[in-house]
């Protein structure tokens, strides 16, 4: 009897051991590249071209890699600012536009309502990679070529199918009685939307904002095509230029610093708002 119990306990312990062993191994595989890159980026300038063995700074903590990254383009601050402006601008505009559209689609009746909704969602089927050439020309005609505003507008458009869908669902979930009550109290239209309904659809807004921020912060091809002026480059374009090398030599320290600057905000936003991110993912998957 006792031996049986012991055997079961031993098996459970072994099971838990192999479970956690596998888990830790997987976590290392998926996280180690980040940890090694971030640690390596703080090595001394003389170590930058050496393999990261060990990955942490051995000659003391140093910002050399960031200093040399700063010597590319218009300086790392300028490019971080470009990326931040585009990403935050995209998030804000996407929220505003999809909030209004989601409200309109959820609460109003008008001609071609369903057709227009399907039209917005259907753009998901068309990859933006296939319309970059005309986009380039249309933006030039509008005087928005090589401009961060033009790029932001393109990014907002790319976010709309997902965001409008999310926001319409968010409004659909709000009981109509709340609106009726607010109407009786005299709140109408935009005031009703902002004062009464906005707090109720806030989780949807956060989800929409996170996806808009991350996608536009990380986007590469459109930025590569639509921005031609060096000082306008967003971070991914800058760092890929660093990787391409200068005078035949590649400054790997600057690449490590660049990857750190690009990925840390994403990891931070994700860890902070994981719940909302996963909600968006599930909504997309279930749809």
């Amino acid at each position, binding site marked *: 009897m006792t031996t049986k119990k012991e055997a079961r306990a031993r098996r459970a312990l072994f099971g838990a051991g192999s479970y956690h062993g596998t888990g830790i191994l997987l976590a290392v595989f998926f996280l180690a590249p980040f940890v090694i890159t971030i640690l390596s980026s703080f090595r001394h300038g003389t170590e930058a071209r050496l393999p990261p063995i060990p990955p942490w700074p051995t000659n003391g903590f140093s910002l050399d890699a960031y200093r040399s990254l700063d010597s590319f383009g218009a300086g790392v601050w300028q490019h971080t600012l470009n990326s931040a402006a585009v990403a935050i601008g995209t998030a804000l505009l996407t929220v505003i536009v999809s909030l209004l559209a989601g409200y309109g689609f959820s609460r109003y009746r008008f001609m071609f309502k369903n057709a227009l909704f399907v039209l917005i969602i259907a753009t998901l089927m068309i990859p933006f*990679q296939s319309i970059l050439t005309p986009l380039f020309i249309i933006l030039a005609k509008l005087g928005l070529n090589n401009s961060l505003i033009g790029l932001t507008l393109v990014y907002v458009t790319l976010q709309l199918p997902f965001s409008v869908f999310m926001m319409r669902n968010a409004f659909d979930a709000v009981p109509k009685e709340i609106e009726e009550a607010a109407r009786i109290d005299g709140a109408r239209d935009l005031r009703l939307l902002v004062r009464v309904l906005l707090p109720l659809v806030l989780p949807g807004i956060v989800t929409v904002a996170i996806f808009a921020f991350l996608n536009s912060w990380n986007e590469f091809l459109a930025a590569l095509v639509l921005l031609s002026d060096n000082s306008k480059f967003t971070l991914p374009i800058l760092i890929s230029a660093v990787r391409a090398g200068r005078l035949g030599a590649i400054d790997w320290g600057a*690449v490590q610093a660049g990857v750190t600057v690009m990925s840390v905000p994403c990891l931070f936003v994700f860890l902070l708002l994981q719940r909302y991110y996963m909600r968006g993912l599930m909504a997309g998957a279930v749809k």
Partner: protein
Amino acid sequence: MTLADSLSRPTRRRRPKRRSQWKGLLYIAPAMVLVIMFFILPVLFTFWMSLHKWPLLGVPRFIGLNNYIRMFSDTRFYSALGFTAYYTVIITIAIFALAFPLAIFVERQRKMVGVYRTAIFMPVVVGLASASLLWVWFANVDSGFLNPLLAWLGIVDLKTNFFASFDSAFFIVCLMVVWKVAGFTMIILLTGLQAIPTELGEAARIDGANRWKRFFYVTLPLMRKTMALSLILSVTGSILAFDQFYIMTAGGPQNKMISVVYYIFNQSFVSFNLGYGAAMSLALLVILVLISIFQLWLLRVGEERA
């Protein structure tokens, strides 16, 4: 929804219908303007451009279907299509081969499972460009981490340049993409796994089905819809691959790693054959819409049987 609408309408104070129509349109107007301006118009414009010889500067000249004739006889376009198809097949298999076991691993609610899920998912939230840059350094022969690691494990020579030959460079790119994307596919598959009622597995176990039988005859058939979705996401994503080849291999040894999007990019924005680029973009668009339609069909088939 519609029932609730029609029930609640009589109690509501009737307002002039036309006014509310205009209001609704007003709310969706900004979204519509953006979608028309930066999506519908470009799609139509792609077609128009594809009928022209369209240089960056100077006047476009109408040349009818010549761009399409050129496309069908362009061997480099075919090799780009071929390479893209090859990449799509390999990477999709690789992603699923890892993501499925991962999804099963993190399915049950156990201690630390949230931590493991989050760790596996982390690479998904950084950009493909960041991941490419990270791994191109990682796999660099002089300054990287992979050579010392693999040499220490005795797998390769310390001085192996991964980016010198097609196969090893392709392997590194795939390794990066799997590392970056597996967590995403894992989560999608996880939603499918968790939607399966546990009673079904229990019933099969009582009926004497072993673990593998349960997986093949209970789990897999019930996951058809989720599988179709993640499969299509992976396939369409891979067909549009660009960042990893541009950043990591710059087209690869002997230009063997030029994907379709990369080739269109080169024709449009390096050689400035914008009209020809538009024709190929339209071909790509048709291919992807066909795949999307196939996806919808696949999903519908799954629905009917479920």
